Structures are given as C-alpha cells and as structure tokens.
C-alpha cells in the first residue's frame, strides 16, 4: 500500500489504529500523527501483540517495511482480520515533515 493511500485509509477509519513498530528512539525522532509505538525488537513482542484488540483495524509501518511486514504476518497468524502494511516504510518520507 502506498503512503498516501495508507494515510487516507487510516484517517477515515473509525476503528483504525496506526502502529509504529520501530524502536522508541526512532519513534521519538518523528512518527505519523496518532501512531502508537509497539517496538518489534522488544523482549515482550508476543505479549504486546496479544494485548491488541482483534476487533480494531491496524495500520502498521516501520522504516523500510521489513519489520512491519513481519508484524502483519504475526497478527494474521493470530487471526486478526484487518491489517494494513505500509510498503517500503517511511524511510523515503523521513526528510519530509510527517503529518501532524
């Protein structure tokens, strides 16, 4: 999914939760407005994923798309239904001001 489409869907989705799966340090530098941080590299990733509400819709991104894709697959394996991945991540938009 492209960056513009990703934002458009998220901003118009009442059940949408945007999840930044980068490290807290990366998240602190900049992130998409409204995104929560869930560190893919954290020790308790499985617990964090299990704490998510399956009835919500998740918009997942990271820096290049690698970590977010894996989180999407893990959530799919956990029977989550509405998962969206930002292909290629936000790396190429990092020099641009992120919305918000």
């Amino acid at each position, binding site marked *: 999914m492209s960056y513009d489409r990703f934002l458009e869907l998220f901003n118009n989705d009442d059940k949408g939760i945007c999840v930044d799966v980068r490290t807290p340090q990366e998240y602190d530098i900049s992130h998409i407005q409204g995104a929560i941080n869930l560190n*893919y590299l954290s020790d*308790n990733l*499985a617990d964090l994923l299990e704490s998510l509400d399956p009835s919500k819709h998740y918009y997942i991104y990271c820096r290049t798309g690698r970590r977010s894709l*894996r989180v999407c697959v893990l959530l799919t394996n956990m029977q989550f239904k509405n998962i969206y991945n930002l292909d290629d991540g936000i790396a190429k938009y990092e020099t641009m001001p992120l919305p918000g």
Partner: protein
Amino acid sequence: MSKKHTIIEKIAESLRIIPNLHKDRDPLLNRMTETDLDTFPPMEKWDHWEEYEAKSWPKKEKKTYTIVPTTCFNCESACGLTAYIDKATNQIRKFEGNPYHPGSRGRNCAKGPATINQITDPDRVLYPQKRVGKRGDGKWERISWDEALDTISARIRKALKEGRNNEIAYHVGRPGHEGYANRVLQSWGIDGHNSHTNICSSGARFGYNIWYGHDRPSPDHANAKFILLISAHLESGHYFNPHAQRIIEGKMKGAKLATMDPRLSNTASMSDYWMPTYPGTEAAVMLAMVRIILQEGLYNRDYMEKWVNWEEYLQKAHKDVPVTFEKFIDKLIDVYSEYTPEFAEKESGVKAETIREVAIKIGEAGEQFASHNWRSAASGNLGGWCVSRCLHFLSVVTGSVGAKGGTSPNSWSKFKPKFHSVPPGQKFWNELHFPKEYPLAMFEMSFLLPHMLKDGRGFMDTYFSRVFNPVWTYPDGFTWMEAYSREDLFGMHIALTPTWNESAFFADMVLPMGHSAERHDLNSYATHSGKWIAFRQPVLREAARRAGKETTFTYETNPGEVWEEDEFWIELSWRIDEDGSLGIRKHFMSPYREGEKITIDEYYQYIFENTPGLPEAALKEGISELGYMRKYGAFEVEHHTYKKNEKVVAESDLKDARLDEKTGIYSKEGKNVAIKIDGKPRIGFPTPSMKNEFFSQTMVDWGWPEHAIPTYIKSHIHEENLDKSKGEYVLVPTFRLPTLIHSRSGNAKWLMEIANRNPIWMHPKDAAKWNFKTGDIVKLSTDIGYFIDKVWVTEGMKPGVVACSHHLGRWRREQDQGNRWATNTVRIENDGNGKWNMNTKSGVKPFNSSDDDSKRIFWVDGGVHQNITHAVHPDPISGMHCWHQRVRIEKPGPNERYGDIFVDTNKSMENYREWLKMTRPAPGPDGLRRPLWFKRPLKPAKELYYLHESKSDNGNGSVRSSEMATPEKPIE
C-alpha cells in the same frame, strides 16, 4: 577475446560497483584477487578493529573487535569467514568473508554469515548427553566428557581385542578434515569408514572415474567461452559460491551458458540456453552433441589422438579395421549413428535445433569449454553415471580436459597433507560397506546399511555418526528408525553433532561438536584451477591466545562444553590403547616431543611446515607456519593447475621402470609410473591405459560389456516405465534451495526465515488434470508409501515432471528437543508390523527463549518430509541411490491432511531386494572384489581385495586378512 564493455559497465567499474574487468590483473589467468575487495578491514587492523554498534543506532557507539579467520561449514565449499569477536565481552558478533581465501575471495552466500545463528541458537546441544530409558524415548542426562570417553574407549578396546574390528564404524555426513578421520580409523585397524557419498555424488563420480581415474570435475569457468551445467551452480550445489562468482566472471567476458534442468532454476533463468531435459535423458542429448561435433570436424584431433585409448578400442572392438585415427572417428560417427538431434529431442523434449546450436557452440569453444555435474541428473537416475560420462566425452572431443577455460580433474586442485604418522592399510574388509554385489560402487553402500543389518548381514557394536542424519536426509527413513531402535543391530550409537536432529533422537550418546568457528579442520577444494588450503579454527580459542590465555582443549573456550572432533579422536585413541600394546598410541605421538601425546597445534604445525611454499611465506613475516594460517586462514599452494597429465616424469623416477613399447607405458613393481607421449614420459591419468578411456576394459572384465564405451541407459523413471493413465509421474526430489543445506541449517533462524516450505512444483497443464490451484493439497504415492504436500503451479516446471526441494520438512516429536525454528511437531505411529504413519500436530510457531527473535517467528509451515517415503534405488554399477521417484499423483481423501505420511517398511525391504537382483557381483578378474585401480576412501591392505572361496564369515560381515587369498594365490 573479451566481450566489448558497455558504457554502464565502464561507469560501474570506475565507481567500483563492479570489479574492473578491463584491468589486466593477471595476464595468465585474468581472475580477481583479494585486492579487489578494498573495503574490507586491512589486515594490520584485524586485532583491533573499531566499528559502530548497529543495535545502538541512532546513537553512535564504538565497539572494538578482534577479527579471526576461519571457514564456513554450511556446505562443502569451505568458503572463508572472518569472525568479529567483541573484545569487551569475548562474544562472536558476526561473520563476514575472508578476502585472503583463494576459493571464495571474500564473498559468501547467505549461509556463511548465518553461522552466527547456529552458534547462538538457544536450542543447540551444549553438553554431552546420554540417553536414559528406552532408545528413542527422548529422555537425556548430562554427562562429562570423561565419562563419554571412558565408556566408548572401553567398548572399542574390547572389540579390537576380540577381533571384532568390523563392528566399529564411523558414518560421516559432512566430511572434511582432509584425511584426519581416515588416519584415526586406520590407526585403530578398522575398515570403519562409511560416508554419505552414495546418496550424493557417486553417480557422477563413477562416470568421470571410468574415463580418467579422477572422480570429480573442476571447471575453469572464469576463462571459459562456453559453460554447460548439469546442475544449478549459480544458486546452489557444491562449490556454488566459488563457482557462481567465476561463472559470472566468465559471462562478463562473453562466455555463453547452457543449463540442463527440467526446472527453471535461478541458474537456468540466468542461462543463454535453458535445456529442460526430461530427467535421465541428458546422456542421449550429449551423445547427439558429441556426434555433431565429430561430423562438423570441430573435434580436437591433437588431444584425442594423444590422450584417448582409441587404439585399444579399435584393436578390441573392431578387429577388422586398420588402427588409424581416421578410422576411429569414422567408427565413432557410425557407432553413435542412432544419436541424432531428432532422437535426442524425442527422448529429452529439448528441440533438435537447440541441441544442434549448443553442440556447435561447444565445438567452437574448443579447449575453453567448461562443464560441471556433481549430483543432479547423475544422482537421480538408474544409469545416472552415464550423464557425467557423456559430459566428459564432450570435454574429451573438444580437448578441454585440463585446459585453461576447460575442465580439470578435481584432484589436481586438491591438496594432500603430509601427516606425521601414517598407519598401514587395515587388514579388514567390511562387507556392510562394500558388499560384493557392488564391486564397482564408488563409495560405501551406506544407504543400504539398515537393510543389510535387518537382513542379518552383520552387527554394529560401536557406531559413530558424525554430522549425519539419515533418518531425515536419506531415503526410507523409517527403515533407519527401525534399525537404529534395535540394540541387536546397533550396540551403541554415538552421535557427534552440532545440533539435535531426527537421527540423534535414536542415539545412545549425543556429543556436541562445534560449528565451523568452533573447531579445527583443514580444507582444500577444487573451486577453480588452482590449489589452496584453508584453516578452520576455533575462533574464540584463537582470540584467547591473542589475549595471552592458555587453552588445553577447545571446549574450554566454546559455548557450554562444545568440543571438536580432532581433539576428541586424539583423546579417545589414547584411552583405547591404554598401554600402547594395541599399536594405536604410536600414531598419536608428538613429532616434536618424544614419547608424549600430540597436541592439536602440533598436528597442524607439522602439516603446515610440510606445505609447499608456506614455510617461505611464513618466514617472510617472521612467524611460524601455524601462525601464518592462524592469521590469514588460507594459503594458495599453486596458482593454477592446468594440464598436469602432460608433466614430464623425472628420469630418476623411471629408474628400473620397464617400457611397454606397444602401449607406451612405463611400469615399476607392478605399477604404472608414466606414459610416453610425444616421445617423453609423462604423468598421464591414473587409469590402466594412463589415458582417457573411451573404451573401458574394466567394464568388460566386471561383466558390463554393453557399457564398455559411453552409453545412454534409460532411467527407471523413463516415460516408457510410467503409466500416465494411472497418474504416474516422475518426481525430481533433489534440488537444493540456495539458502539451506540438508539438515544442518535447521538451527539458523535467518535461513529458515528466507525459505521454510517445500511445495510440489507443477506445470499448469499438469495441474489442470486435477484442477489443482496453488496451495491445494496433493497426494504423491511412491513405491513404499505416500506423502501429502501442497501444489505450487508454475510454468517454471517442465510439463510431465514434478519437483520438490529436499531441504525442508524437518520434524520433532513431542518428547524431542531442538531446531524449533524449523521443525513441525509430529505424531508418529507404528503398528509393529512395518506400517508407519506420521501426522503433523502443529507447525512452526513462536517460542520463548534467550533469543528474542524466537518470539517473532512468523512462518507457520515447516514443509513436508518427502525423503522418508522414498524407496531405495541402488544403481547396480555405481552404487548411487537413484533419487528420482515414480509417483502416483492424486487428490487426497476427505480425511487426509497436509503433512500426512505413510510408509510400509516391508515394501522397503522388498524393493531393496528387487534392486539387488540387478547387480553382477564380484569376483572379477583374478578373484578380485574390486578393481585395484579404483579408489576407496579407506584403502585396506592389498590382499584384502581378493575374495577367497573358503572365507569364513565371523557373523558380522567382516572378512579378516588371514582368511584372504593373496594376489599370487587367487581363487580358482
């Protein structure tokens, strides 16, 4: 002539994105050197290298490393690795390539850097274990190395004292060591070497060996004009990383590449000619190509006239014609008249025009024709050895054997170390390894071991498996499980392994041996025209040495108590021969300290100081030979190894030799020592004629006169042998995935992440017959059972053929440990009468461990274990297991699930006996059980080669020297 370079290539060269191929680095060889990798840390900084810690990003945190060279163990290429060891924590952080390694030249495939996963795998075996409870129950208890050594040595000592030498065996999956283990076994006086080779490369080896006495090829891809691969060496296979880089180098200089493979592999997709041959018909295509080259006059007369035994052929097979070279060529064209391009097309499915075009290109390439076949078709088919035999025929007619840009014998490039002590040939012949039904088998009939044991042919009292997992890797794994579970067949099974595996589950002891960076080893492989050695060393031990710490045994520096085979064998041998009376200890004495036990450093120092050129190189740097190898990890012994057959033999070596004027052969003490070519005595080839043997008297003498010259044998899965109306197909089960290696990569998380399932490749036309779509489940029935897999519908598969990678489908039972990155959890049931069922209880899933990545496993499917449903197919000549399977394809029933497996081992035994009937057993001429000129990995005393009518068998399949006939007194 070099290909003209494009502007893009020139720009890429100037930016150093690609090597500068315009620069003439080496006028002789035009190949790259380590200086092309100029971004690598310079050698002078290897003991103090600083770089930023990736995990601290965006913070810039410097780490200091000591860089220690070693070699990779994830395939047999032994590519160079460098371990980056954090000086603060003494932990290995990562592996990169080693630019000083002449084979890999700094480059690695994915498997090299993944060594770090294997070292840090939370599921690895860290301490010696012995089973508690019944074999296979999965209950283990930690023991000390001392207990292991004392228990094993007592058993072996008892067996040796009672003359039960043939009840001790070492069964090796991944060899190496350049003669180390063989020396140990011969010091014990046992015929105890059993290898994996007859499920690997024996087929191709036989085809080469029968031609020129060397059993493997070493192509000079970088300097070739045309390359023909019967394999997938741009992506996988033996020596793939060293070969792939040289194939690309050759292609960048204009070489054309052709690949025979029914599957559109990555290699085939990079080829100029993809020749999707029907499996097993490759020899027919190559004979057609040979004939075209002969008819077009593109053959190399000079080479053939000098180096082929054509005179012997005419004298024996065509007594009515004059013995002239012209008549030989006429006869060749006549004898092979059946092999037209049209016939080859009918057999293989490859267009006659393509066959003709490729043949002409090969003929035009002449001496610069490089080719390769290791396993692939030669390992898949009844008569697969004809594939490499006919491939070498192309090398012979083009005169490219041993030429620059051609294909040399591998042994010209392989280093043979000089040992401080060489035990004599053993006085035993183990018929479980070389049974008389297979007198020409290139290697031991290892995949028939459980069948022969179940047949009452012997007993294994003390059996070592080393990096060996036949329950999973071999065909007919349930028969292995049955045999391994029986204490009346295997008295004690000791698994020497870096990882848990499906066979170790049925062992009595599991002894943890190091991964590549955790042990010593010497490597030398035929990666190109050149000869090198590489030093696999335990990198933490070397780091400790650099830090001034003394180490006695390698397990002191490795994780847990992971040891290494080299030191283990020394300690074990010493304990077997408590007082030296068995004559074993004398082979493990220090060459430098009289009467004292050798150390591992002394063992390698002796080899290195006897390596040509190495003492001089070490002297230049003011360090010892061992110090040089510790520092660089590799040494180039010879820069190139072309045309060694032409080397003139020194007059002093011909003293007392007798010259046979008719054959031109000089012989001394019953051995051929030179052959006269161009008026000079030359080394020649190690065959009876000392030439390339187009005509093989050996094949005639051993009962196969119909294969005296290169032939084409229709495979057991030839279309004529399949009933398509019943859904019968050929299954090609042999292809490798570039990132995996048999069962060893199961504990490398990065590799499992890349590839983790093995669906059935099927062409859309075939899929349409059953209305299969990608992801549907499919049932494939073999001669002994069935397995249920998923379909991958792809045009990358030849219609009429299906394929499945053998690299996946790892499993463990509920009670087993290890490899959770790769294994499905399965339920195995046995009715007690040979019928086995396996079902998947759960796939791969995240787990808690010391490695946080284990919680992030996103793949759920570990694939399906196909080999366990394969019947054994021993080729009656080469002894190779013919891997391809006749399968019946159908839709599974309503109660059948993905991953279901069934095998009837009674059918396995029936099948084994059927194939046994195809053999033509020894004795051969003079009562021989094997041609004297054929190699054996562990060569016994010469008198053991002779069968005796009244030999007595001591019940364990062994034959003792005292019962042998002698060469002077053969059987009547």
